């Protein structure tokens, strides 16, 4: 049983870290696009920011379990199969990037207009303003946002069992719930609580370090 739990733990770890990693990369890109192209942005292209906003909202309103199923054709195309841990990681990445895009967008938007004007008046380029002022100022908020998203994704990963993704959540459903192994169910729940606590504490610690 220990091996079963360990194996599932590693699967969860893989799905969450991989989807958070790629999700953050895509999310940052989308967030910058949103912030830059908004009407008051540094590169105003309202049609981009608006259509991107509608796209994000549309996909964020789809329940994750439905999203997994809807994405099966894409998963098959990208991963080669629609079943397994790697296959489950794709919809997780997609869901994570949607959440992260909004969270980073909000964080970047907290930079005061005045501070951006300081950059402009210094003769800084848009990229310098984004990276050296906005991103720098928003970092603590971004870290706390990513912490929240990580915890969400840990929850989402329980649904990965639908496509054979495995992981702790899937183990809890199949062995704990469907096979009435109450001890295993409680054990997994405790492990999940510990993981979430660790993630939150690490996030809080990093945020406090970054905030001056």
């Amino acid at each position: 049983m220990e091996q079963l739990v360990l194996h599932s733990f590693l699967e969860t770890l893989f799905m969450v870290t991989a989807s958070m990693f790629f999700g953050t990369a895509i999310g940052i890109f989308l967030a910058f696009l949103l912030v830059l192209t908004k009407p008051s942005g540094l590169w105003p292209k309202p049609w981009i920011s608006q259509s991107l906003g509608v796209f994000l909202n549309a996909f964020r309103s789809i329940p994750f379990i439905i999203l997994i199923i809807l994405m099966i054709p894409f998963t098959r195309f990208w991963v080669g199969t629609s079943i397994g841990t790697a296959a489950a990681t794709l919809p997780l990445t997609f869901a994570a990037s949607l959440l992260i895009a909004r969270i980073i967008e909000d964080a970047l938007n907290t930079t005061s207009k005045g501070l951006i004007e300081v950059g402009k008046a210094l003769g800084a380029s848009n990229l310098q303003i984004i990276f050296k002022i906005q991103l720098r100022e928003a970092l603590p908020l971004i870290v706390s946002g990513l912490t929240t998203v990580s915890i969400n994704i840990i929850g989402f990963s329980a649904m990965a069992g639908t496509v054979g993704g495995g992981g702790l959540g899937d183990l809890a459903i199949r062995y704990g719930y469907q096979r009435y192994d109450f001890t295993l169910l409680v054990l997994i729940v405790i492990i999940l609580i510990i993981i979430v606590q660790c993630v939150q504490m690490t996030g809080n610690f990093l945020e406090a370090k970054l905030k001056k």
Partner: protein
Amino acid sequence: MEPHFLSIIIKNLGKSYNVAILKDINLEVPQNQILGIIGKSGAGKSTLLRCLNGLEQPTTGTITIDNQLFTGVSDKERRRIQHKIGNVFQSVNLLSRLTALENVMFPLKLFKGNSKDIHSQALKLLHLVGLNGKENAYPSQLSGGQAQRVAIARALMGDVSLLLCDEFTSALDFETSLEILELLRDLNKRLGVTIILITHDMAIVREICDEVCVLEAGQIVEKNDITSILLHPQHTVTKSLIRHLITKDLPHHLQEKLNKTPTDKCFALLRLFFSSKAAGDPIIASIVKTYDVPINILLGSLDHIRETAFGSLIVSIPFELEKITNIMKDLDQRSVSAEILGYFPQSGGHSWNS
């Protein structure tokens, strides 16, 4: 440095969005000068400043900074000139996650990366603005005045020859504002940096400026040296801005009793301004002697324009047309400017004074 080297030349500058904000602004600012641009809110001060720091492009006209055209040039050229301009904004706008020293270094780090020169210049400036020992403090650990000093040091980083200040004292208490103004004057003398500051407050202008330029409805309505502006204001806007500063106006309930025209047996209320030149003479005493009139001083204040003292008095004199006319003429010759505020009926004339 040539004595008449011009730091800024503004020619026929206009800026309009849907309505005209600035109209035909012409202005020359010699190097090393401290120029105050004063006006009421909505007069166009901020827009003018934003044209000068490159945050806005003027609709018409040109700006030349240090002999280089600043308007209608490529982004690259504009940015190059922007490096010579330091800005102190209304809100302090420091990067919250950088220390005081890192904030001062920020403008140059943005372009050149790390180097020892940047560090030593930043350290020097931070000491110059009086923040020894605060190098590693974060903005949240600094007081409003200290944070503004950091912002000034940051504005002076690099090869800055022009400092633009936008209502930057409005968030500070008066004492702190005075300290910051003193610092600016000191920096102006030591570094030879030209300073333009915009404000709605004549008290700020009086403390620091060499020249004043009064903006009203997007136009310059008056421009003169500070002493002339304060002692001989021409335009009504200038006068009203000054009134807040140097006249202790009569209390409202007394103003209500004031008649516009003289009545039989009344007192005339006069407001006198005198500069340091006139302040040396015993003017009131000699008027009393020459015209044999009892002068009653109702209100008075002494004020300073930079190093020049001047005073303002409100006095009452028993009204006799001929005498008053002569007294006014006499005062004028002694370079005291006098203005009749109104007339009090004799019965109440002195009673309210006690």
